[in-house]
Protein backbone atom coordinates (compact mmCIF):
# COMPACT_ATOMS: atom_id res chain seq x y z
CA UNK A 1 0.00 0.00 0.00
CA UNK A 2 1.04 3.63 -0.33
CA UNK A 3 2.91 5.61 2.29
CA UNK A 4 2.26 9.32 2.24
CA UNK A 5 5.25 10.10 4.46
CA UNK A 6 7.80 8.18 2.39
CA UNK A 7 5.98 9.17 -0.82
CA UNK A 8 5.76 5.58 -1.96
CA UNK A 9 3.01 5.31 -4.57
CA UNK A 10 0.53 2.50 -4.64
CA UNK A 11 1.40 -0.39 -6.94
CA UNK A 12 -0.13 0.15 -10.34
CA UNK A 13 -1.21 -3.03 -12.11
CA UNK A 14 -2.44 -3.17 -15.71
CA UNK A 15 -5.97 -3.72 -14.39
CA UNK A 16 -5.72 -0.51 -12.44
CA UNK A 17 -4.70 1.42 -15.54
CA UNK A 18 -7.62 -0.04 -17.46
CA UNK A 19 -10.02 0.93 -14.69
CA UNK A 20 -8.70 4.46 -14.52
CA UNK A 21 -8.85 4.84 -18.28
CA UNK A 22 -12.49 3.79 -18.23
CA UNK A 23 -13.42 6.61 -15.86
CA UNK A 24 -14.48 9.21 -18.41
CA UNK A 25 -16.41 12.17 -17.09
CA UNK A 26 -20.05 12.52 -18.20
CA UNK A 27 -21.29 15.57 -20.05
CA UNK A 28 -23.62 17.62 -17.92
CA UNK A 29 -27.08 18.46 -19.20
CA UNK A 30 -27.35 21.91 -20.77
CA UNK A 31 -28.74 24.45 -18.34
CA UNK A 32 -27.90 22.28 -15.36
CA UNK A 33 -25.09 24.55 -14.20
CA UNK A 34 -27.29 27.67 -14.33
CA UNK A 35 -30.02 25.85 -12.44
CA UNK A 36 -27.66 24.77 -9.66
CA UNK A 37 -25.96 28.17 -9.39
CA UNK A 38 -29.32 29.93 -9.12
CA UNK A 39 -30.47 27.46 -6.49
CA UNK A 40 -27.22 27.88 -4.56
CA UNK A 41 -27.60 31.67 -4.50
CA UNK A 42 -31.18 31.38 -3.24
CA UNK A 43 -30.21 28.90 -0.55
CA UNK A 44 -27.29 31.04 0.62
CA UNK A 45 -29.58 34.06 0.99
CA UNK A 46 -32.26 31.99 2.71
CA UNK A 47 -29.67 30.46 5.03
CA UNK A 48 -28.38 33.90 6.01
CA UNK A 49 -31.91 35.11 6.68
CA UNK A 50 -32.69 32.06 8.83
CA UNK A 51 -29.46 32.48 10.77
CA UNK A 52 -30.16 36.16 11.46
CA UNK A 53 -33.73 35.41 12.48
CA UNK A 54 -32.49 32.68 14.80
CA UNK A 55 -29.96 35.00 16.45
CA UNK A 56 -32.52 37.80 16.78
CA UNK A 57 -35.07 35.41 18.24
CA UNK A 58 -32.58 34.18 20.79
CA UNK A 59 -31.67 37.72 21.82
CA UNK A 60 -35.32 38.71 22.18
CA UNK A 61 -36.06 35.58 24.19
CA UNK A 62 -33.10 36.23 26.49
CA UNK A 63 -34.19 39.86 27.02
CA UNK A 64 -37.72 38.71 27.84
CA UNK A 65 -36.46 36.20 30.38
CA UNK A 66 -34.23 38.82 32.03
CA UNK A 67 -37.11 41.31 32.10
CA UNK A 68 -39.49 38.78 33.62
CA UNK A 69 -36.99 37.70 36.28
CA UNK A 70 -36.15 41.28 37.14
CA UNK A 71 -39.80 42.29 37.32
CA UNK A 72 -40.70 39.27 39.41
CA UNK A 73 -37.93 39.96 41.90
CA UNK A 74 -38.80 43.64 42.02
CA UNK A 75 -42.44 42.94 42.78
CA UNK A 76 -41.45 40.37 45.43
CA UNK A 77 -39.39 43.04 47.17
CA UNK A 78 -42.33 45.43 47.01
CA UNK A 79 -44.86 43.00 48.52
CA UNK A 80 -43.73 42.69 52.17
CA UNK A 81 -44.47 46.29 53.11
CA UNK A 82 -46.17 47.53 56.29
CA UNK A 83 -49.93 47.74 56.20
CA UNK A 84 -50.13 51.51 56.53
CA UNK A 85 -47.76 52.17 53.68
CA UNK A 86 -49.67 49.79 51.41
CA UNK A 87 -52.87 51.57 52.20
CA UNK A 88 -51.25 54.89 51.35
CA UNK A 89 -50.25 53.45 48.03
CA UNK A 90 -53.82 52.45 47.45
CA UNK A 91 -54.91 55.93 48.23
CA UNK A 92 -52.38 57.46 45.85
CA UNK A 93 -53.31 55.20 42.99
CA UNK A 94 -56.96 55.57 43.66
CA UNK A 95 -56.73 59.32 43.77
CA UNK A 96 -55.47 59.36 40.20
CA UNK A 97 -58.29 57.21 38.94
CA UNK A 98 -61.12 57.89 41.38
CA UNK A 99 -61.06 61.54 42.44
CA UNK A 100 -63.83 61.12 44.97
CA UNK A 101 -62.24 58.16 46.74
CA UNK A 102 -61.00 58.75 50.31
CA UNK A 103 -58.41 56.43 51.80
CA UNK A 104 -59.43 54.41 54.85
CA UNK A 105 -56.07 55.13 56.45
CA UNK A 106 -56.76 58.81 56.49
CA UNK A 107 -57.93 60.34 59.72
CA UNK A 108 -61.53 61.46 59.69
CA UNK A 109 -60.57 64.69 61.41
CA UNK A 110 -58.64 65.69 58.33
CA UNK A 111 -61.87 65.90 56.42
CA UNK A 112 -63.12 68.63 58.69
CA UNK A 113 -59.86 70.58 58.68
CA UNK A 114 -59.69 73.65 56.45
CA UNK A 115 -58.03 73.20 53.10
CA UNK A 116 -54.35 74.09 52.90
CA UNK A 117 -53.46 76.99 50.62
CA UNK A 118 -51.41 76.24 47.49
CA UNK A 119 -47.98 77.64 46.65
CA UNK A 120 -49.38 81.07 45.74
CA UNK A 121 -51.33 81.37 48.95
CA UNK A 122 -54.73 80.89 47.31
CA UNK A 123 -57.09 78.61 49.07
CA UNK A 124 -57.92 75.44 47.18
CA UNK A 125 -61.52 74.95 46.08
CA UNK A 126 -63.58 72.99 48.54
CA UNK A 127 -65.87 70.12 47.59
CA UNK A 128 -69.27 69.45 49.00
CA UNK A 129 -69.91 68.32 52.50
CA UNK A 130 -67.41 65.76 53.78
CA UNK A 131 -68.42 62.18 53.23
CA UNK A 132 -67.86 59.63 55.97
CA UNK A 133 -66.55 56.65 54.11
CA UNK A 134 -67.36 54.25 56.91
CA UNK A 135 -70.96 55.23 56.75
CA UNK A 136 -71.39 54.34 53.05
CA UNK A 137 -71.41 50.57 52.30
CA UNK A 138 -70.69 51.13 48.59
CA UNK A 139 -67.45 52.86 49.49
CA UNK A 140 -66.43 49.91 51.65
CA UNK A 141 -67.08 47.52 48.79
CA UNK A 142 -65.21 49.79 46.42
CA UNK A 143 -62.28 49.88 48.79
CA UNK A 144 -62.15 46.10 49.04
CA UNK A 145 -62.37 45.81 45.28
CA UNK A 146 -59.43 48.15 44.78
CA UNK A 147 -57.35 46.28 47.33
CA UNK A 148 -58.09 43.01 45.53
CA UNK A 149 -57.05 44.55 42.24
CA UNK A 150 -53.90 45.87 43.83
CA UNK A 151 -52.96 42.44 45.14
CA UNK A 152 -53.60 40.90 41.71
CA UNK A 153 -51.33 43.47 40.21
CA UNK A 154 -48.54 42.26 42.48
CA UNK A 155 -49.18 38.65 41.56
CA UNK A 156 -49.06 39.43 37.83
CA UNK A 157 -45.77 41.29 38.17
CA UNK A 158 -47.34 44.64 37.41
CA UNK A 159 -48.62 43.66 33.98
CA UNK A 160 -52.25 44.31 34.88
CA UNK A 161 -53.30 47.43 32.99
CA UNK A 162 -54.43 50.47 34.91
CA UNK A 163 -58.12 51.14 34.89
Amino acid at each position, binding site marked *: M*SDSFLEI*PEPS*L*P*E*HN*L*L*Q*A*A*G*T*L*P*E*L*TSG*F*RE*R*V*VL*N*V*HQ*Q*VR*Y*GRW*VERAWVTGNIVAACLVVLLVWNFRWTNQQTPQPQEQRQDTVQDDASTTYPTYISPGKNSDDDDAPAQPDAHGNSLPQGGPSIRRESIPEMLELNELIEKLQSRKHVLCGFLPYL
Partner: protein
Amino acid sequence: MSLNHTTDFQANFRYCVDRLTEQPERALTEMFDLAAQRLVRFAITITGNQPDAEDALQGAFARIAFKPRLLAKANAPWPYLIRSVRNEALRIIQKRKGTGLEVAERGSGEESVASQIVHEETADIVRRMLKTLPKNQYQVVILKHWEELTFAEIAEALGLSPNTVASRYRYAMEKLQRSLEPLVR
Protein backbone atom coordinates in the same frame (compact mmCIF):
# COMPACT_ATOMS: atom_id res chain seq x y z
CA MET B 1 -5.78 10.41 -14.18
CA SER B 2 -2.30 11.41 -13.13
CA LEU B 3 -1.11 12.10 -9.60
CA ASN B 4 -0.46 15.77 -10.41
CA HIS B 5 -3.96 16.16 -11.75
CA THR B 6 -5.40 14.76 -8.53
CA THR B 7 -3.15 16.94 -6.41
CA ASP B 8 -4.21 20.01 -8.38
CA PHE B 9 -7.83 19.06 -7.98
CA GLN B 10 -7.48 18.61 -4.23
CA ALA B 11 -5.59 21.91 -3.87
CA ASN B 12 -8.23 23.79 -5.87
CA PHE B 13 -11.02 22.11 -3.94
CA ARG B 14 -9.35 23.02 -0.64
CA TYR B 15 -9.05 26.62 -1.86
CA CYS B 16 -12.80 26.71 -2.57
CA VAL B 17 -13.59 25.23 0.84
CA ASP B 18 -11.42 27.81 2.60
CA ARG B 19 -13.46 30.61 1.03
CA LEU B 20 -16.83 29.05 1.79
CA THR B 21 -17.58 31.09 4.88
CA GLU B 22 -16.50 34.43 3.39
CA GLN B 23 -17.89 34.20 -0.14
CA PRO B 24 -20.20 31.19 -0.21
CA GLU B 25 -21.87 31.95 -3.57
CA ARG B 26 -18.62 32.36 -5.45
CA ALA B 27 -16.88 29.49 -3.68
CA LEU B 28 -19.75 27.11 -4.36
CA THR B 29 -19.95 28.13 -8.01
CA GLU B 30 -16.24 27.46 -8.45
CA MET B 31 -16.60 24.21 -6.53
CA PHE B 32 -19.39 23.15 -8.87
CA ASP B 33 -17.28 23.92 -11.93
CA LEU B 34 -14.46 21.92 -10.41
CA ALA B 35 -16.24 18.83 -9.12
CA ALA B 36 -19.66 18.56 -10.77
CA GLN B 37 -18.72 16.01 -13.42
CA ARG B 38 -16.87 13.81 -10.93
CA LEU B 39 -19.79 13.92 -8.52
CA VAL B 40 -22.34 13.16 -11.23
CA ARG B 41 -20.17 10.24 -12.35
CA PHE B 42 -20.22 8.90 -8.81
CA ALA B 43 -23.94 9.55 -8.33
CA ILE B 44 -24.72 7.61 -11.51
CA THR B 45 -23.31 4.52 -9.79
CA ILE B 46 -26.10 4.85 -7.22
CA THR B 47 -29.05 6.17 -9.21
CA GLY B 48 -28.28 4.33 -12.44
CA ASN B 49 -29.13 7.32 -14.64
CA GLN B 50 -27.83 10.81 -15.20
CA PRO B 51 -30.96 12.93 -14.55
CA ASP B 52 -31.34 11.50 -11.06
CA ALA B 53 -27.61 11.87 -10.46
CA GLU B 54 -27.84 15.56 -11.41
CA ASP B 55 -30.82 16.02 -9.11
CA ALA B 56 -28.78 14.46 -6.31
CA LEU B 57 -25.91 16.83 -6.98
CA GLN B 58 -28.25 19.83 -7.01
CA GLY B 59 -29.77 18.74 -3.70
CA ALA B 60 -26.38 18.29 -2.11
CA PHE B 61 -25.23 21.73 -3.24
CA ALA B 62 -28.45 23.31 -1.98
CA ARG B 63 -27.95 21.76 1.43
CA ILE B 64 -24.36 22.94 1.61
CA ALA B 65 -25.38 26.43 0.44
CA PHE B 66 -27.90 26.59 3.27
CA LYS B 67 -25.19 25.82 5.84
CA PRO B 68 -21.75 26.32 4.27
CA ARG B 69 -20.03 25.97 7.63
CA LEU B 70 -20.78 22.25 7.71
CA LEU B 71 -18.50 21.66 4.76
CA ALA B 72 -16.00 24.32 5.79
CA LYS B 73 -15.53 22.69 9.19
CA ALA B 74 -15.38 19.11 7.93
CA ASN B 75 -12.09 17.32 8.56
CA ALA B 76 -12.11 15.80 5.09
CA PRO B 77 -14.24 18.09 2.86
CA TRP B 78 -14.03 16.07 -0.37
CA PRO B 79 -15.27 12.81 1.19
CA TYR B 80 -17.88 14.87 3.06
CA LEU B 81 -19.18 16.28 -0.23
CA ILE B 82 -19.21 12.81 -1.81
CA ARG B 83 -21.16 11.54 1.16
CA SER B 84 -23.68 14.38 0.81
CA VAL B 85 -24.21 13.50 -2.84
CA ARG B 86 -24.57 9.83 -1.93
CA ASN B 87 -27.17 10.63 0.73
CA GLU B 88 -29.13 12.74 -1.74
CA ALA B 89 -28.96 9.99 -4.35
CA LEU B 90 -30.21 7.43 -1.84
CA ARG B 91 -33.01 9.83 -0.85
CA ILE B 92 -34.06 10.19 -4.48
CA ILE B 93 -34.10 6.42 -4.90
CA GLN B 94 -36.18 6.09 -1.75
CA LYS B 95 -38.61 8.73 -2.99
CA ARG B 96 -39.00 6.94 -6.31
CA LYS B 97 -39.76 3.73 -4.48
CA GLY B 98 -42.28 5.53 -2.27
CA THR B 99 -44.14 7.02 -5.22
CA GLY B 100 -44.28 3.66 -6.96
CA LEU B 101 -41.92 4.66 -9.72
CA GLU B 102 -39.35 2.07 -10.53
CA VAL B 103 -35.74 2.88 -9.88
CA ALA B 104 -33.69 2.76 -13.00
CA GLU B 105 -32.44 -0.75 -13.30
CA ARG B 106 -28.88 -1.63 -13.88
CA GLY B 107 -29.65 -2.52 -17.47
CA SER B 108 -31.11 0.89 -18.35
CA GLY B 109 -28.14 2.58 -16.65
CA GLU B 110 -25.91 0.41 -18.69
CA GLU B 111 -27.65 1.56 -21.81
CA SER B 112 -27.39 5.25 -20.89
CA VAL B 113 -23.70 4.93 -20.11
CA ALA B 114 -23.05 2.84 -23.19
CA SER B 115 -24.82 5.38 -25.40
CA GLN B 116 -22.42 8.07 -24.16
CA ILE B 117 -19.37 5.99 -24.98
CA VAL B 118 -18.73 5.99 -28.67
CA HIS B 119 -14.98 5.92 -29.16
CA GLU B 120 -13.42 3.84 -26.41
CA GLU B 121 -14.34 0.26 -26.90
CA THR B 122 -12.04 -1.02 -24.21
CA ALA B 123 -13.29 1.50 -21.71
CA ASP B 124 -16.79 0.41 -22.55
CA ILE B 125 -15.96 -3.21 -21.82
CA VAL B 126 -14.31 -2.26 -18.54
CA ARG B 127 -17.34 -0.28 -17.49
CA ARG B 128 -19.58 -3.18 -18.30
CA MET B 129 -17.44 -5.41 -16.17
CA LEU B 130 -17.51 -2.91 -13.36
CA LYS B 131 -21.26 -2.92 -13.47
CA THR B 132 -21.36 -6.64 -12.98
CA LEU B 133 -19.96 -6.08 -9.49
CA PRO B 134 -22.28 -5.78 -6.53
CA LYS B 135 -23.20 -2.14 -5.98
CA ASN B 136 -21.30 -1.71 -2.72
CA GLN B 137 -18.10 -3.12 -4.27
CA TYR B 138 -18.67 -1.04 -7.39
CA GLN B 139 -18.79 2.19 -5.38
CA VAL B 140 -15.58 1.35 -3.56
CA VAL B 141 -13.73 0.63 -6.80
CA ILE B 142 -15.05 3.84 -8.37
CA LEU B 143 -13.97 5.95 -5.42
CA LYS B 144 -10.62 4.22 -5.27
CA HIS B 145 -9.68 4.40 -8.94
CA TRP B 146 -11.64 7.31 -10.35
CA GLU B 147 -11.64 9.65 -7.35
CA GLU B 148 -8.33 8.31 -6.01
CA LEU B 149 -9.45 8.39 -2.40
CA THR B 150 -7.69 6.47 0.35
CA PHE B 151 -9.48 3.68 2.19
CA ALA B 152 -9.96 5.99 5.16
CA GLU B 153 -11.54 8.64 2.92
CA ILE B 154 -13.77 6.09 1.22
CA ALA B 155 -14.82 4.84 4.63
CA GLU B 156 -15.68 8.44 5.59
CA ALA B 157 -17.63 8.96 2.37
CA LEU B 158 -19.62 5.74 2.58
CA GLY B 159 -20.04 5.66 6.35
CA LEU B 160 -18.26 2.33 6.71
CA SER B 161 -15.20 1.10 8.58
CA PRO B 162 -11.87 1.14 6.68
CA ASN B 163 -11.58 -2.64 7.10
CA THR B 164 -14.94 -3.20 5.42
CA VAL B 165 -13.93 -0.92 2.58
CA ALA B 166 -10.63 -2.72 2.14
CA SER B 167 -12.24 -6.15 2.06
CA ARG B 168 -14.87 -5.03 -0.46
CA TYR B 169 -12.14 -3.60 -2.62
CA ARG B 170 -10.15 -6.84 -2.41
CA TYR B 171 -13.13 -8.99 -3.41
CA ALA B 172 -13.98 -6.63 -6.25
CA MET B 173 -10.44 -6.61 -7.59
CA GLU B 174 -10.22 -10.40 -7.48
CA LYS B 175 -13.30 -10.61 -9.69
CA LEU B 176 -12.13 -7.81 -11.99
CA GLN B 177 -8.68 -9.30 -12.46
CA ARG B 178 -10.26 -12.52 -13.70
CA SER B 179 -12.60 -10.62 -16.04
CA LEU B 180 -10.00 -8.17 -17.32
CA GLU B 181 -7.32 -10.78 -17.92
CA PRO B 182 -8.07 -11.09 -21.68
CA LEU B 183 -7.84 -7.30 -22.06
CA VAL B 184 -4.57 -7.07 -20.16
CA ARG B 185 -2.84 -9.60 -22.43
